[in-house]
């Protein structure tokens, strides 16, 4: 990677009510320079190699492995049904079965996908310009007084002091998602009870490595 190494993953703030009810739920994030561009051949090749890793039966058995199981359990505990709204790792695996391969979208999306498939930990990217310096954290959405709510009030969300960026385990809202003018992204991984911290860090570093591979290439 060119230039200085980015600072390491930092924990995001978790609202007290959320922390007391769901002790293992947490967010780790870091900022890295990246733009919305096509993936270089090395990243596409990595996606292709990952496409051949799992078969249908391993996808079915995925829910018995510790990391996916931990996310499925968390989904149940926050009112989501993982058989209806799949956890990110299962969603990626199912999409791979349906399409026959992991499809390349752009460099940032591909980096997040590779980190997810490799570790089972979901990683999302926000436009760093839309994120407050304190960084994203986890909280409960409030009903805004003067504007329509981007997510239902009372929902668990990824947010900072300025705005809500995404529903928990959901894709970033359009206003926070990386776009053509993005020059840096805030990558964040969501951890739940039963997922060791090292997995979150590994997922973020992997995504960084993929983004760095583009810079090097």
């Amino acid at each position: 990677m060119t230039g200085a190494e980015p600072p390491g993953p930092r924990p995001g703030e978790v609202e007290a009510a959320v922390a007391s009810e769901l002790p293992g739920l947490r967010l780790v994030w870091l900022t890295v320079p990246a733009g919305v561009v096509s993936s270089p051949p090395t990243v596409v090749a990595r996606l292709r190699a990952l496409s051949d890793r799992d078969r249908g039966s391993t996808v079915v058995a995925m829910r018995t492995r510790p990391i996916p199981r931990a996310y499925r359990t968390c989904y149940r505990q926050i009112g989501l049904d993982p058989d209806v709204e799949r956890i990110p790792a299962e969603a990626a695996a199912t999409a791979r079965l349906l399409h026959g391969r992991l499809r390349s979208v752009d460099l940032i999306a591909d980096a997040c996908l590779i980190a997810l498939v490799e570790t089972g930990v979901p990683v999302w990217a926000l436009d760093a310009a839309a994120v407050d310096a304190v960084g994203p954290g986890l909280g409960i959405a409030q009903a805004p007084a003067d504007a329509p709510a981007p997510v239902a009030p009372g929902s668990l969300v990824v947010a900072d002091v300025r705005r809500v960026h995404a529903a928990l385990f959901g894709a970033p809202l359009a206003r926070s998602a990386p776009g053509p003018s993005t020059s840096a992204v805030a990558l964040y991984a969501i951890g739940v009870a039963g997922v060791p911290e090292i997995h979150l860090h590994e997922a973020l570093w992997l995504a960084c490595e993929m983004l760095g591979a583009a810079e090097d290439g």
Partner: protein
Amino acid sequence: MGAELLTAAGTGSRLTRPGPAAEAAARRTLRTQIASLEAELAEAFVTAFEMRLDRAGDVAAAAVPGPRLLDLGELEQVRDELAGRLRELRLRISAGAELQARKRELLAQMQLEPGRHRFTRISCRELGEPGCGVWQVRPRLGPVGMLMGWWQVTLSSGCPLAVGRRRHAAPSRP
């Protein structure tokens, strides 16, 4: 703690509404139960899949309002629904295992005395085995075997071709 006292009408008995700490403890217990049920459900799901049971993954798709902190009643509802799903899946596994055991017994009898089970068919799926093969009692040498009472158990060669036979067939004569 500010616990509210409720008096049951007519009985005179006093019911104490649990305080916030007790409710939080109850929610923790329910979350632990949900985690345990989810693990058991995952194991049962994989077992059902390996047994080739139909509709192993069927779920009633309910509207999901979004991720939120669930209250005591909602957690109880999730726990009860999971317990119901697990019970139903285990019943299906149990019934499937019984049926497969009967089919295996029948296959053993077919192999011992094919003449008593003429044209009986059992698919590999019915036995809980992979593949599309079918065990069948057929006459050896066709009509000759039928007349002579020569019966045998055969296993068909497996899944049909994805593209069908016609594509590979020789071109028809003009």
